[in-house]
């Protein structure tokens, strides 16, 4: 049966912030439409709206030409629309078969689960990927599977619902090349069976292999819908970035003789596949790329919060932090991305939050007055707008709360500052103040490693930007190479657009 799905002029606002301003997407039976866009362009919001996870504020969805609204993911599933997400929807302590058939188990006499039938159907599904996995079988516990095989289970689970429209959201991210080949063969087969597929991927190469059309989002607006056979990588990248988008860059140079503060060789974690980098005192090194390419892991590893292998030297001295405390003793500070869960104790006072990492200095013997003086000085330096030092952090605006997150580390005078996407959800005015603060810190000689999911921010602030892709550095951009086109191209895993690779 043929199907067509069309999202028209979709608008989605999250508490005042527009995530999607004019989202449009059309897909029909036998078609693979690639959905592309830079970070924050609204592609995940759009796919969540199509699958009923998020309700739109304006615009409409047409299924087979008729307007529909989905109150929940279940409603979308009933209409034949399913999604394979990156955040897996599997139950670790249940078997592969139980997971695939959860909530639509084959029954006997209407009540008893027909395990034999369930296994038979699971084996039939697994045959689709036969030879492309190692341990996977119907009775394996999902908890025991490696990430790629979990992803395969997730794909098969979505397919087991016999969908008419399937959304593959970064479904290839953890698959190896053989598994990707198999998936693409399946997609060709499913196309022939009238399935409509939306393919969200950050790998350009895959988009050109599998997609028929590409829909490009930029700043929440669908800016292009092109046939893959009539376009090329460069055109797509240009669509993803604004034509006039070459933000004014403030040229800054770091003295070439500034001492190297941090040097990293072959750093590996589960997500990182060998990272080399060097930061000098007073340098602001940007880390870019699409979200989830290992940027946070890099910062966490350097802070000693997750296990890693490789060589790291701090001011020429080899170090291997196994606990954040060890990193803190060497004047390394980490500003987390998620203020609410990692950065602040919301119901406690500003003073307590600021002093939290520094009790070693004020705790023994107890020097509350000096602690309060120092904390107040930092708060004044940061221009922290506050009712009083004893007011709870929850009383502060987002931007001011963010100042507390950073302020608590400034009290320790860090020599190396690790920033994990610190301006997420911070309003524009507060961002500007934050940028000034970063500049002051670099003037004072602090080395800063700055991960941001906001490309414009990286372009405006950084001397150099390392772009991460699949846990590797796909490009190091500086000087005139550091522009939007190169940044986007590198985050999609392709080479430089305007210049030859260095």
């Amino acid at each position, binding site marked *: 049966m043929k199907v067509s799905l069309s999202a028209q002029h979709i608008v989605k606002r999250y508490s005042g912030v527009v995530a999607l301003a004019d989202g449009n997407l059309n897909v029909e039976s036998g078609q693979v439409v690639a959905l592309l866009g830079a970070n924050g362009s609204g592609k995940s919001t759009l796919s969540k709206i199509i699958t009923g996870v998020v309700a739109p504020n304006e615009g409409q969805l047409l299924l087979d030409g008729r307007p529909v609204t989905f109150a929940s993911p279940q409603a979308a599933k009933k209409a034949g629309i399913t999604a394979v997400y990156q955040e897996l929807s599997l139950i670790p302590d249940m078997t592969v078969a139980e997971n695939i058939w959860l909530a639509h188990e084959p029954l006997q006499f209407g009540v008893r689960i027909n395990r034999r039938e369930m296994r038979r159907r699971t084996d039939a599904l697994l045959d689709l990927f036969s030879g492309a996995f190692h341990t996977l079988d119907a009775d394996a*516990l999902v908890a025991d599977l490696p990430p790629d095989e979990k992803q395969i289970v997730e794909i098969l689970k979505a397919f087991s619902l016999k969908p008419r429209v399937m959304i593959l959201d970064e479904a290839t991210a953890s698959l190896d090349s053989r598994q990707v080949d198999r998936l693409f063969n399946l997609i060709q087969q499913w196309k022939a069976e009238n399935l409509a597929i939306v393919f969200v991927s950050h790998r350009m190469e895959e988009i050109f292999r599998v997609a028929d059309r590409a829909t490009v989002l930029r700043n929440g607006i669908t800016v292009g819908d092109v046939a893959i056979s009539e376009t090329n990588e460069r055109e797509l990248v240009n669509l993803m970035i604004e034509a006039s988008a070459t933000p004014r860059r403030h040229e800054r140079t770091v003295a070439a003789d500034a001492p190297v503060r941090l040097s990293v060789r072959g750093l590996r974690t589960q997500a990182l596949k060998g990272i080399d980098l060097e930061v000098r005192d007073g340098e602001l090194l940007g880390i870019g790329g699409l979200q989830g390419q290992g940027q946070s892991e890099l910062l966490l590893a350097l802070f000693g919060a997750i296990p890693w292998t490789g060589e790291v030297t701090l001011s020429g001295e080899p170090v291997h932090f196994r606990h954040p405390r060890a990193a803190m003793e060497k004047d390394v500070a980490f500003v987390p991305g998620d203020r609410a869960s990692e950065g602040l104790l919301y119901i406690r006072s500003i003073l307590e939050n600021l002093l939290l990492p520094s009790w070693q200095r004020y705790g023994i013997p107890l020097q509350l007055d000096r602690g309060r003086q120092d904390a107040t000085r930092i708060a004044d330096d940061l221009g922290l707008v506050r009712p009083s030092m004893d007011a709870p952090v929850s009383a502060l605006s987002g931007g001011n709360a963010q100042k507390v997150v950073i302020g608590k580390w400034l009290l320790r005078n860090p020599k190396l500052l690790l920033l994990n996407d610190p301006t997420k959800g911070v309003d524009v005015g507060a961002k500007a103040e934050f940028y000034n603060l970063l500049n002051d810190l670099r003037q004072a000689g602090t080395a800063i490693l700055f991960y941001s999911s906001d490309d414009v921010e990286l372009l405006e602030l950084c001397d150099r930007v390392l772009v991460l892709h699949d846990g590797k550095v796909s490009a190091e951009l500086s000087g005139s190479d550091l522009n939007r086109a190169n940044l986007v191209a590198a985050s999609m895993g392709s080479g430089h657009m305007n210049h030859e690779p260095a």
Partner: protein
Amino acid sequence: MNLLRLQRYANRNSYLFALLLLVVVLAINYSLQPSLFELRVLNGNLRNWFPLMLLAAGQTIVIIGGGIDLSAGAMVSMVNALLVGSLLTAESTPDEVLLGALIACGAGMLVGAINGFCVAYLRLQPIVTTYATSFIYAGVALYVLPRPGGAIPADLARTYRSTPLDIPFVVYLIVLLILFWLALRATRFGQYLFATGGQPNAAYASGVPVNFVRFLTYVLSGLFAALAAIALTISVSTGNPRIGDKMTLDSIVAVVVGGTRPNGGQGGIIGTVMGIVILGTIRNIISFANVPTWSQTLVDALIIIAALTGPGLIRLIRRRFQ
């Protein structure tokens, strides 16, 4: 390949550690009390343990579903008080007994539904909620039966103590309980239960009615509390409005000792049945070994700790040797 199958079996059947512990404590008990496996002793022990076994079975379902029921014991007190205080007398006819039992089950399910409604739909924290409601149920018990006393037909106790085919009557009931569990596991609700306790968000995204499943676990816990109260009432043949007070903690200990994961998502009633036998046997040992009874609490605590670390240790050792 066989090793893999064994490992999977161990993963699915979390009571293997309990089984080991069971063998050990039974052996110790047997060495202190050679008559342990004689029909008379066996029957006496099982009869004493069976009410708690039923209560812990309900607790198991709640815990697998990711919750906990601290009102279990109070529900037992309440149903016991209802049975003795207003539903039955020593002269009740079999029909009246049956009706009384049905009303008791209904009352248990009703108070279980109150717990379930608060936890699943009002999203109240399970520990706090069921602790609070336990006072309501205990209050009802005292209202219905202000002081211990009362009686029920003597025939009931006679049946309960009987040994048809030289097997204690209670053993047939335990077999029924295990069959009930195996049947439940084979239904869709069984899958939903483990999914809800294992990863509620993923379960919701897969179309599992997570709230309704949570609600039902508490209703079932109420039903099992009522059944436990019926068994207990028959066993002691009298009423006491505080009879179940101490049973809540024991039911939780038995569930955990039986290998059910305290956070939910894994475990089963078969393990809980073993957990009850382990607890009861340990108490036997304490009384036979002339250990002061005040140390019983200490031993209980040590057993819980051993039960909590045991399965983890096995997993750790397995990982070492892989």
